[in-house]
């Protein structure tokens, strides 16, 4: 009898264990690795392509410090409708507002009214004065607290899609933007090794955050926001716990070899967190909606080609959030308050990949003209009137019928 019970126990325990495992629900949002090393985003176990836009609805006359979240104008209501009509299913927010109730309201309204999900991000102190001190324990703890607080507050919101940690923070490790150091870094004398050390410190911190998030939130993937692919050869060893790369990239008509290069550097799925084109021809000095539409259509085409299941692509892309939904009139010269009310056509940087208005000596990336929706000074229901640009319609049509090349492989005859 005892023997029987003993054997039953042996048989039953793994059975119960397995049953328990099987009944455990899958995460609400997860990334599935498919055959051939491809990746697919699943939401409630259904494939989900991120068709999104970066969202920062700053009205004309305000700058990035403007807190639009609790605002009576509720820009997301009007924007959400337009987005839904276009086919947008996701927005990306760089950093949440201070009022949790207001943030929840935005997430809920967008999801319940329009089915639009929200990607929530955190700058990880990138813009902290004097610089992001990733080598400093107190600094890291402060940021960690912020991030985990965000996750705890919003993880149960049905509209949340995933978390993005950082944006282009890797450039700070390479001494290019907001450079920082630490005692450990100062001890290293070789400049290349200094960079490597900073990247190791930074990516280890992101990895720690990803691990902590996974402990408290089972349902949403964690993305590493990264400028281009810089530094990912280090992230490969130091940020293993992130689920995907959220890449910020401006390469013009296509993303070049991004998808293939990522596969061989840091084999994680990628979502294009920030990409796009402006709608101003800096050479001819006039708005050019066609130029913007041309670049965006081509970029979306390549995103789709690299989704799972397309033989022409790598299959590691999950979608993208184009930069950006609406123009922001404050961006050219943040310090010039008068300029916040002027649609400035000056640019601060040049990018040769945007070749229509790329001429020697002309800075052609017009920060205030990246919206797929333009803003008018005319007010409508308390908001600057939204005027969809041509790219709005072109991408809408592309999404309706993403005609890609026929899936015919070129096989030697």
């Amino acid at each position, binding site marked *: 009898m005892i023997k029987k019970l003993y054997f039953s126990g042996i048989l039953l325990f793994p059975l119960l264990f397995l049953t328990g495992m099987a009944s455990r629900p899958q995460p609400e949002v997860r990334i599935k690795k498919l055959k051939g090393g491809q990746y697919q985003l699943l939401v409630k176990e259904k494939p989900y392509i991120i068709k999104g836009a970066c969202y920062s609805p700053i009205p004309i006359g305000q700058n990035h410090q403007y807190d639009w979240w609790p605002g009576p104008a509720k820009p997301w209501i009007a924007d959400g409708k337009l987005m839904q009509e276009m086919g947008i299913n996701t927005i990306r927010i760089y950093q949440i507002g201070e009022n949790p109730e207001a943030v929840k309201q935005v997430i809920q309204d967008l999801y319940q009214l329009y089915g639009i999900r929200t990607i929530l991000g955190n700058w990880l102190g990138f813009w902290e004065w004097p610089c992001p001190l990733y080598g400093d324990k107190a600094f890291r703890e402060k940021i960690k607290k912020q991030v985990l607080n965000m996750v705890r507050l919003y993880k149960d919101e049905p509209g949340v899609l995933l978390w993005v940690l950082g944006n282009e923070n890797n450039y700070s490790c390479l001494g290019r933007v907001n450079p920082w150091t630490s005692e450990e870094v100062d001890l290293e004398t070789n400049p290349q090794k200094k960079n490597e050390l900073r990247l190791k410190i930074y990516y280890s911190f992101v990895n720690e955050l990803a691990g902590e998030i996974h402990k408290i939130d089972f349902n949403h993937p964690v993305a590493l926001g990264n400028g281009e692919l810089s530094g990912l050869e280090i992230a490969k060893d130091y940020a293993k716990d992130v689920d995907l790369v959220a890449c910020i990239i401006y390469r013009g008509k296509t993303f070049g*070899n991004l998808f293939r290069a990522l596969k061989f550097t840091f084999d994680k799925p990628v979502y294009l967190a920030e990409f796009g084109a402006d709608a101003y021809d800096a050479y001819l000095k006039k708005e050019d909606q066609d130029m913007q539409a041309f670049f965006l*259509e081509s970029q979306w085409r390549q995103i789709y080609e690299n989704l799972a299941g397309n033989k022409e692509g790598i299959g590691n892309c999950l979608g993208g959030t184009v930069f950006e939904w609406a123009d922001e009139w404050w961006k050219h010269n943040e310090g010039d308050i008068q300029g916040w009310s002027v649609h400035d056509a000056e640019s601060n940087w040049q990018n040769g990949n945007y070749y229509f208005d790329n001429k020697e000596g002309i800075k052609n990336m017009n920060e205030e003209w990246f919206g797929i929706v333009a803003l008018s000074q005319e007010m409508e229901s308390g908001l600057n009137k939204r005027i969809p640009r041509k790219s709005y319609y072109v991408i809408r049509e592309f999404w309706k019928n993403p005609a890609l*090349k026929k899936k015919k492989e*070129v096989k030697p005859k």
Partner: protein
Amino acid sequence: MTKSSRKSGIPQRNMQEAGECQNHRKTIINPLGICVLSLFLVLSLAICQSPAQDEDKLTALSKQAIEAKPGDDLYAPFEGIKEIYFSQNKYNEFIGFLNSLVGKNKEVEPFINYYISLSRYYQLRYLEVSQSWNEYFSKGDTYRDQILSSALKARDASGAGSLINVYAKLILWRFHNEAQDNSAEAALAELTQGAKQLPATKNVLANIKYIADLLFSYKEKVKAKELYGIYVERLLGLGLEAADLKNNAAAFFKEGNLELAEALYDAYIEKEIASLPAGNLSAFLKDDLALIAASFTRKDFTAADPVYAERCFKKIEDAGGRGVFSEETTYLRALNLEKSGNYLKAKDIYLDLLSRFPAGEFADTANFKAAVILTYITHELVSGRSSFEALAKKDSLSPQAISAHYQLGIISQWQGDSALAKEYYDLLIQKAGDKFADTVSLAKDRLGEIQQSLPLEYNLKTFLDICLNNGQPEMALPVLDLTSAPLKVKNNSDINIKTAAWSLDSGCAPVELQYLWSGNLGKNKPPLDQPSFNTSFDSPGTKEINLVVIGPSGAVAFALDLLDIE
């Protein structure tokens, strides 16, 4: 409608007529004759604004295509027809014409499909360049689909080793390559394999070269070289004499196709070295091969490949030893190495020149340059200083000997030995008299600093800090390429100095770089934000230009250039 079409150009009418012709072809009693007639009508409508001779040419070429028999060369007539339509960007009309040929002659089917694909490919490019966005957005997907499907049909319906088969593969590769998709690699392999299968006839050679040129322009250098190799192999197979090879190489060099010129020169050199009697080898090396090497060194206004030039110099050295080189050729070789950034080897050759021609025309220049490289690039300060001292002690009063005093002065000043530095500067001014104004002016600036107990000029000190701290971490900084144009410049003539493109990937937040220029900058003192500047010099000599590039977190690169002012 027809009349207005005639006036306005052509447009959709041709497509319709071409379609009609195709639909009715079954009822035609004498298909060939009537089709030639209808083709004439189509063409007349299509090219109504072109000169009459275009129409005649089109009719003749079309007849040739339709009446083609197996084995006939169809590529030439179709190319002729294509040129007429493409020159006017009439892609839809060309496709209308091509569709009108469907079913007329089995031989032309692959050509029809290939040219449909080609037309759509160039049409899309044209729509982008001309910014004809309405058609681009509304028809783009259809055209893309046609590029692929028609090219595949052309490829599959044509035999391997035929031109049309290879060109269909070429368009497939270009399409996939520009889309940066997964099929690009396989398409490229298929293309090069196809090109290799082309028959070894003289008239096919130009096509292999065309494909290789195209691959080269797409930066597919390995595959391009592979095809250039086949081209040369086939050319050799035609039994070319060494002199013909050399002439062909020179012709390709002249047209700027250095890859092919080099491949042919290599074949020529190999042939000559293998066949020449030992007694004639030295002359060949000294005269012929040295001239070829010299032609590839950097010069004003012509293409250059310093790496290939050095390969030729090395061949001379291997076959005849360094003794074969004249002083002038030795200097040219060292200069070529220096300008292409191979400082270690350049230093070696400059020192070789100095040992073999100590009283030669280039001795002081070689001495000065070797000393600069030793001091600032290879960080051998002791040897560098000795070289400067040797030059300074010479009785001759060359610009380089005067500059050597200045270099010894700034090294001493940087090392904190102001008294010794002052000695060098005083000696320099005394020896120079009223000559060498640029260098005298610099020495006076430094003397002023010593007299007023001021630190070394900031830009110069930064440069010296980076280059003279032997074994310090700054050595890991990349050396930037500095270029000056023109290369041959006289005193008081303008010269432009610029850094190679240098950018730091920094996303949307642009990096502001600072350019700390120092050294002998001539009459201009460029500001901090200038990556290039124009200047001129009062006196001849070897002028050292120093640069340190500063990013947000400190020095990111440095550079040094030595200008020969005549």
